[in-house]
């Protein structure tokens, strides 16, 4: 049995005191110690023993006696032991203060403690243990910075002072600087390998601290042993808020919300320490949050935040509050909370993404982009971040969006995760927009997977769907009936009914419709309009209200010049939605093409109304309509013409005010300027449009080239004009647009390049043999050629007339409703629909021609008459053409137009242009009219 021996003064004897038999009343011992003037270390030993046995009162008594003024005086030069006693008392009162929950008494304890420490300091200011004690006291008071200073003083003196190291580690730990803390712990262990905390298995704080350290290792084993320690701490002392919090945390993760609430409520009542309370509130909030009690959760998060004030100290409730606010739709508050999280943890990927999302919804695209980009940088393995970034970029930077999507796609694939259809669809759409049709097709196919459509796309399997045909006389195996042709014959959707009757299921899940539609669009672009139309039919079979598919079919029919079918399909679409602007615009365009001017205008107006006057396409169409009306002005009413031009200009300007980058409106405005002879302005406009167009991969606008060439022509730059026409012809029309050849011929003619002129016209005839204007013009060119060879320089009336017939042709403008009508759908986002304006040909040369006519009118000779008669002969075969030619409903068709009618009209117009005083010309024209 351990004993201590108190030496008896002035003798060799000692008093033996068995440590486990210390008297209950300490007065005896004190008396002995005093009487024998026992060394102070014995006082300490006995006091410590009392403490160990839990006899705190005795402990205090001995130490207080040991630090009484008499003792002090007596042992004045025994410095260390005196300090030790004072420090022990300081530590005792610190502890009392620490465990005391009543604020007043707590402070009193702390005051007493600091009193003792100060006393100790007076004996020796440099004693490290005093500083450590002070540090502990400050720590207990929550005065962390000063505590750190206290420990630092000790460590400056002695870098290996274990308690100081631990104290500092503790501070770092509470500040969340775990790695620093761990570092110090390690240093402490190196210096003093017997872990001091282990000395007292009942020490709650030590258990909690060790538990936290274990938990922070983030490994399964660590967490388990950490939780075990927490549990033990709880069993020893059930009111330690810290361990309660951690236990609550644990039960939160195991989903035992009831326990969480109980534990945290206990914790809340057991402590007034801000950070701990904050933690408890957070746990409660989290528990409600996960149960869907957002309002309560929000309140507790807020309470948690109020306890800490600074997000640096405890950031999680800000995140939670942000989440709850987002859930409740309060995006602005949510964003400010998430921003606070980011201040503390600028690289937190989840927060970056969430915040990015919020800013997208708040329309703050730049900030959103910045955040999401950072998210992808912080975590380049997170497909979701790339997905979000791609979705954000899709409307601004398609290239970057595609990159982001593809990265997401690859990451998902590598992770063997399911790739969402939307992602594949979006990648496909982006490829599509970049003109990479094959890649786009692959993506859409991947998005679609297997289904009934596979049979229609792959021509090899397509033949397995043989439709029982009406006739079997010929070698059927040789010609498997195409599905498209049976579609064409039945026009309805009987094919799919037949397939169903044959037991083949015709299914099309809703989420795949967009991809299927897009696939069809790609196939169209790849010129497989057969397969495309089957897919559109399939969509309509399952979803008859899908007007876009209907309009695409109408567009295909139109491209094949099947106007009737196209009209019918547009009608179908309008039956579904009578205000469908795309359908109306296509219809108006078709009407214009068939020369139903008034109806076309009505329809454009309707389309404009249907879009609340917002649709720039409809406005541009109306502008074009007015422009054409001015050009087709049969009565040559200059007032009317001017009004139409004015109106057209007004409409184009209106669009440009709304959308300064609307190419078609700019083109239109250029047309009006050119018509009025302001070539410089027109040139400027056209050039700008052309530059804009050539920078874009998916806008095709041959008209702009033609208009530029027209301006060059009007300004006498024939070589440049020809080059431009030719480029346009080759680039956009595979050299098949005879009208352009006519312009080229016209330019060659002006430049007196007769051979080239003739060649161009012959090519035009070869392309459009039924357009007699070309033949007439060849005649004129050849005559001119021969007369110029004979050095006869006079110009004949004929020539003038040809010019006029040319200008009549030039006046013909086309309106393309391009295929874009269906594209808006593709992305499921409202993109600006591409508006296709039209080509404007203004006849700059008209004025010259009229002047020429006045000068040369007398040279009407026999040859020229003959030429005209020759044409007339042919004309007589189709007398009705002339009737048609007279009204406003004039031939506008550019290629197959009734040639006589157009040349006749040319003359008529020329006639009204030239002065009335020219009877010859009038006569000639009337003759034609007959």
């Amino acid at each position: 049995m351990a004993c201590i021996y108190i030496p008896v003064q002035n003798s060799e004897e000692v008093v033996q005191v068995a440590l486990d038999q210390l008297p209950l009343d300490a007065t005896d011992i004190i008396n002995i110690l005093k009487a024998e003037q026992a060394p102070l270390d014995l006082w300490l030993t006995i006091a410590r023993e009392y403490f160990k046995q839990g006899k705190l009162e005795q402990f205090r008594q001995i130490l207080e006696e040991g630090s009484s003024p008499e003792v002090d005086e007596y042992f004045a030069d025994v410095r260390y032991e005196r300090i030790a006693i004072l420090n022990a008392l300081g530590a005792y009162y610190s502890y009392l203060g620490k465990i005391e929950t009543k604020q007043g008494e707590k402070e009193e304890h702390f005051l007493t403690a600091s009193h003792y420490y100060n006393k100790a300091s007076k004996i020796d200011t440099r004693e490290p243990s005093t500083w450590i004690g002070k540090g502990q006291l400050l720590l207990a008071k929550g005065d962390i910075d000063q505590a750190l200073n206290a420990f630092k003083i000790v460590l400056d003196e002695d870098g290996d002072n274990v308690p100081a190291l631990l104290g500092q580690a503790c501070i770092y730990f509470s500040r969340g600087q775990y790695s620093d803390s761990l570092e110090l712990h390690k240093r402490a262990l190196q210096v003093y390998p017997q872990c001091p905390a282990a000395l007292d298995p009942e020490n709650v704080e030590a258990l909690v601290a060790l538990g936290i350290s274990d938990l922070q290792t983030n490994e399964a084993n660590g967490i388990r042993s950490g939780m075990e320690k927490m549990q033990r701490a709880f069993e020893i002392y059930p009111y330690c808020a810290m361990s309660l919090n951690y236990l609550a945390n644990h039960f939160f993760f195991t989903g035992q919300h009831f326990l969480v609430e109980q534990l945290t409520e206990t914790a809340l009542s057991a402590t007034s320490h801000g950070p701990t309370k904050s933690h408890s509130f957070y746990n409660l909030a989290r528990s409600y949050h996960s149960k869907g009690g957002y309002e309560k959760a929000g309140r507790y998060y807020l309470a948690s935040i109020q306890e800490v004030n600074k997000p640096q100290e405890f950031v999680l409730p800000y995140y939670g509050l942000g989440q709850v606010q987002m859930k409740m739709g309060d995006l602005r508050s949510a964003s400010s909370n998430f921003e606070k999280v980011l201040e503390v943890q600028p690289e937190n990927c989840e927060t970056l993404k969430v915040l990015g999302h919020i800013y997208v919804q708040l329309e703050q695209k730049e900030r959103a982009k910045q955040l999401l980009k950072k998210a992808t940088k912080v975590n380049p393995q997170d497909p979701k971040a790339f997905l979000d970034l791609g979705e954000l970029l899709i409307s601004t930077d398609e290239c970057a969006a595609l990159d982001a999507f593809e990265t997401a796609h690859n990451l998902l694939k590598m992770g063997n995760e399911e790739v969402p259809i939307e992602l594949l669809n979006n990648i496909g759409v982006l490829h599509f927009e970049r003109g990479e049709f094959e890649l786009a097709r692959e993506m859409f196919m991947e998005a679609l997977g297997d289904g009934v459509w596979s049979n229609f796309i792959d021509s090899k399997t397509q033949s397995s769907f043989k439709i029982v045909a009406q006739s079997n006389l010929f070698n059927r195996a040789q010609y498997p009936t195409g599905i498209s042709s049976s579609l064409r014959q039945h026009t309805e959707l009987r094919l799919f009914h037949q397939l169903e009757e044959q037991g083949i299921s015709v299914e099309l899940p809703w989420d795949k419709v967009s991809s299927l539609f897009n696939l069809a669009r790609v196939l169209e672009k790849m010129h497989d309009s057969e397969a495309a139309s089957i897919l559109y039919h399939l969509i309509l079979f399952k979803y008859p209200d899908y007007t876009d598919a209907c309009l695409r079919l109408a567009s295909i029919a139109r491209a094949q010049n099947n106007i009737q079918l196209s009209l019918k399909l547009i009608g179908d679409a309008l039956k579904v939605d009578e205000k469908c602007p795309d359908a109306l615009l296509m219809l108006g365009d078709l009407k214009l093409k068939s020369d139903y001017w008034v109806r076309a205008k009505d329809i454009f107006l309707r389309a404009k109304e249907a879009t609340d006057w917002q649709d720039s396409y409809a406005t541009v169409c109306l502008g074009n309509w007015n422009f054409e009306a001015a050009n087709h002005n049969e009565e040559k009413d200059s007032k009317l013409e001017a009004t139409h031009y004015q109106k057209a200009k007004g409409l184009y300007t209106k669009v440009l005010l709304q959308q300064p980058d609307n190419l078609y409106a700019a083109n239109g405005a250029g047309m009006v300027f050119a018509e009025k002879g302001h070539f410089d302005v027109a040139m400027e406009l056209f050039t700008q449009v052309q530059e804009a167009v050539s920078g874009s991969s998916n806008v095709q606008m041959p008209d702009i080239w033609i208009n530029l060439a027209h301006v060059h022509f009007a300004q006498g730059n024939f070589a440049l004009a020809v080059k431009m026409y030719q480029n346009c012809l080759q680039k956009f029309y595979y050299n098949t647009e005879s009208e352009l050849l006519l312009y080229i011929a016209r330019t060659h003619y002006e430049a007196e390049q007769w051979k080239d002129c003739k060649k161009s016209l012959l090519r035009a005839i070869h392309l459009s043999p039924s357009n007699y204007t070309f033949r007439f013009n060849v005649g004129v060119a050849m005559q001119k050629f021969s007369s110029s060879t004979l050095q006869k320089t006079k110009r004949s009336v004929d020539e003038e007339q040809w010019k006029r017939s040319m200008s009549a042709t030039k006046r013909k403008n086309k309106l393309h409703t391009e295929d874009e009508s269906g594209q808006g759908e593709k992305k499921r986002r409202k993109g600006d629909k591409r508006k296709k304006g039209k080509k404007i040909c203004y006849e700059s040369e008209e004025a010259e021609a009229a002047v020429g006519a006045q000068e040369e009118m007398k040279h009407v000779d026999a040859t020229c008459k003959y030429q005209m008669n020759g044409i007339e002969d042919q004309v007589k075969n189709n007398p009705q053409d002339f009737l048609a030619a007279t009204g406003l409903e004039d031939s506008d068709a550019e290629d197959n137009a009734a040639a006589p009618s157009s040349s006749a009209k040319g003359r008529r117009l020329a006639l009204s242009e030239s002065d009335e005083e020219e009877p010859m010309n009038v006569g000639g024209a009337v003759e034609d009219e007959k």
Partner: protein
Amino acid sequence: MKLAPLNTVGNAHDDSVWTAAWVPATDESPPLLLTGSLDETVRLWNPDGPQKLQTNTGHCLGVVSVAAHPSGRIAASASIDSFIRVFDVSTNNTIATLEAPPSEVWQLQFNPQGTTLAAAGGGSASVKLWDTAQWQLTATLSVPRLEGLKPSEKTGSKKFVLSVAWSPDGRQIACGSMDGTISIFDVTRAKFLHHLEGHNMPVRSLVYSSAPLDARVLFSASDDGHIHVYDTEGKTLISSLSGHSGWVLSVDVSPDGMAIATGSSDRTVRLWDLKMRAATQILTGHTDQVWSVAFGPSLKTDVRSCLLASVSDDKSLSIYKYS
């Protein structure tokens, strides 16, 4: 099946080559190729080499069509000036000059029996038949108006007849118009039978199948970018082939009837497997519109192979081996 490019003559003509036709072999000569061009000449080629044998002049304005008599001794060419010149292949002596009103001649085709020359009558909206013994006009097969069309609809000039084809037995003629209609005639009775519907844009080339059982199958090429396969008896569209990105200017069927070749303004020549109903090969040798493709007779060395010729606006002529 496969097309192997053999030879290309870069500047076969001085300008765009618009038409080509094979002249069957005779006792004295192997199969030869005739080409016609915007340069107003008709040229005769030996596909070996290929070697230019002759340059025939005599046309004003571009040559739009050439056709060879089945005997291989006579051929005809037509130009924009509406004259048809019939000439002796080997000597280039003019045999006859057939005149028509302006713009009333386009494509030419001899019947398989060699007794009649059919000429697409352009603006006359008819097919003109000339007998090859006297070179007299024997019949005019007029394309009737489509029913239900009001006279006010200006379809007149759209009836311009561009293309013409004989059925293998010589009893039927098909002709194609600018408006896309195809008309079928019974030649022996000189009677219009019916229209084939499906195209709405110019039909520039037509050909009947050469496979024995499929004599009623007609292939058509149109500006709408499609090739249609029709059953001319059943008046039905059997299938429609898409893939060209421009006008389909010419179509011809292989001697074995298993494949067709097409030429397009998209500058490609395509070979289509009829069983698969898909283009199995796309040849991109030409740099401009391919105006004509023509399968030649089977090779003597390899009966299962034959030559294919294509001509283009790029002035060139290409020869391929089909097998």
